[in-house]
């Protein structure tokens, strides 16, 4: 999992070749509580770094999932429509949100790696 990168707003992107899978971290899902709804973007939508890629809702909160880097949506996790609980149960696996084709891989350098994110978490709680 060395090619997973993190944002300070608790999104991750797991990069494989020129594509990356975006989701929210375990910390983020715990903060949100039971996820009840996920709103995903249309395929083909182009996202720029830091803009809204999806929204995720719990009973009493709604949060934006921002694109960690720029890219074009190539796939979304359709399973979340019926089973939003996947975000809680397996945020880094089955509970992913969006797959994008990266526009500029150099943007990854602005993100944290797993160790850095772990250190970052210590500062926020």
């Amino acid at each position, binding site marked *: 999992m060395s090619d997973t990168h993190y944002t300070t707003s608790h999104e991750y992107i797991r990069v494989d070749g020129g594509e990356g899978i975006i989701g929210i971290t375990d910390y983020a899902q715990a903060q949100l509580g039971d996820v009840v709804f996920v709103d995903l973007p249309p395929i083909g939508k182009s996202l720029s770094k830091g803009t809204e890629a999806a929204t995720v809702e719990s009973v*009493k909160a709604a949060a934006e999932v921002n694109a960690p880097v720029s890219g074009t949506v190539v796939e979304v996790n359709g399973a979340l429509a019926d089973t939003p609980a996947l975000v809680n149960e397996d945020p880094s696996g089955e509970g992913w949100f969006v797959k994008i084709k990266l526009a500029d891989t150099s943007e990854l350098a602005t993100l944290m790696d797993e160790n850095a994110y772990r250190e970052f978490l210590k500062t926020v709680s």
Partner: protein
Amino acid sequence: MRYLPLNAEDRAEMLARAGVASIDTLFADIPKAKRLDHDLDLPMRKTEMDVERLLSGLAAKNVAAGSVPFFAGAGAYKHHVPASVDHLIQRSEFLTSYTPYQPEIAQGTLQTIFEFQTQVAALTALDVANASMYDGSTATVEAVAMARRITGRSKAILSGGLHPHYAEAVRTVSTMAGEETEVLAPDVFAAEDFCSLIDADTSCVVVQNPDFFGNLRDLSAIAATCKTKGALLVGVFTEVVSLGLIQPPGAMGADIVVGEGQSIGNRLNFGGPYVGLFATKTKYLRQIPGRLCGQTVDASGRRGFVLTLSTREQHIRRDKATSNICTNSGLASLAFSIHMTLLGDAGLRRLATINHAHAVDLADRLTAVPGVQVLNKTFFNEFTLRIAGDAAQAIERMAEMGVLGGVPVSRLLPGRGLDDLILAASTEINTDADREAFADALQGALSC
């Protein structure tokens, strides 16, 4: 003061407990120069008897609908409300409870909302309904805003048969939000053609049925056109009793249906409070404004109800909410629901049939008055008269004769050359004698 439990001794003791020397200390954050050190120039407290006397005096200056032959409609209708309805809504537990934010001790309100939502969805023939809006006009404003969110388009087309107050409200609010509204010319004969007007910018077409002039409109064709062109059809009604007898907008293809529910369970109240009904298709669920009540279970597995899908609402989404609405028409929607429970399908259909029968009878009687013409081919309980004279003057003259004989169209549509039109409604409250009195009074008014 009878509403204030504290006496001087309490106050002194409590101030001491609060650790302050005087009540003024508690108001110390108000800039001194801005503090009032005297009572305002308003009357001092009054006894219950005095308030009754004063307000009864004001009330007596008004002509109550029930005291005369009465035929005004135009978006507000006088119907008979069973005594049990008003009794039940004055139960302390309904009247003096708050929005059901603590569901464990608000199941009464929540279940009634769930039942209300089910009733409204069934009446309008749509999938889901919300827990109410303020009234029909503001519900229409919200429907137009919702259509814009769904379609991403900016222009709403409002039928010339839409209640003029509703159209004005939509135009005002839309203009302020930077959106476009096309209000069509008053359409007395339901002859307008929308199809050529709908373009790629059109978010929705808003059509009322029965329309403002009383005509019944088949929405099917316009619904089909909307669908083809990617716009939504918003169906509006101002007389909910009509849904007992005529095709509901949902069955004719409307995507959003909004309307005024005052006729069921609620009095005229000089225009408010009323109750806005709002229903739509399941696929638009996340764009609905206002509260929704949903079914769930409690920790012991018992059925219960909660407010749900709240992430649409202002208290969570703030400036990104689907609407700013918070307080809605709670008690008025309860009155609606109780009255509808008493009626049921059979009662509603009977009530609607009587309304229609009375209106047909009234139309026949008025047609017989020289100089009076009924313009409608179809109608439910209200229709448009053309008279040989000024409608507003005729209404005033009839009022002097003790008959409240409808609404002059020019009151809502001034300066449009419609000064000879009267909207007349007849509901179940009118007797044969009332209708005869109307015909006589109109004849008298026209011959002055």
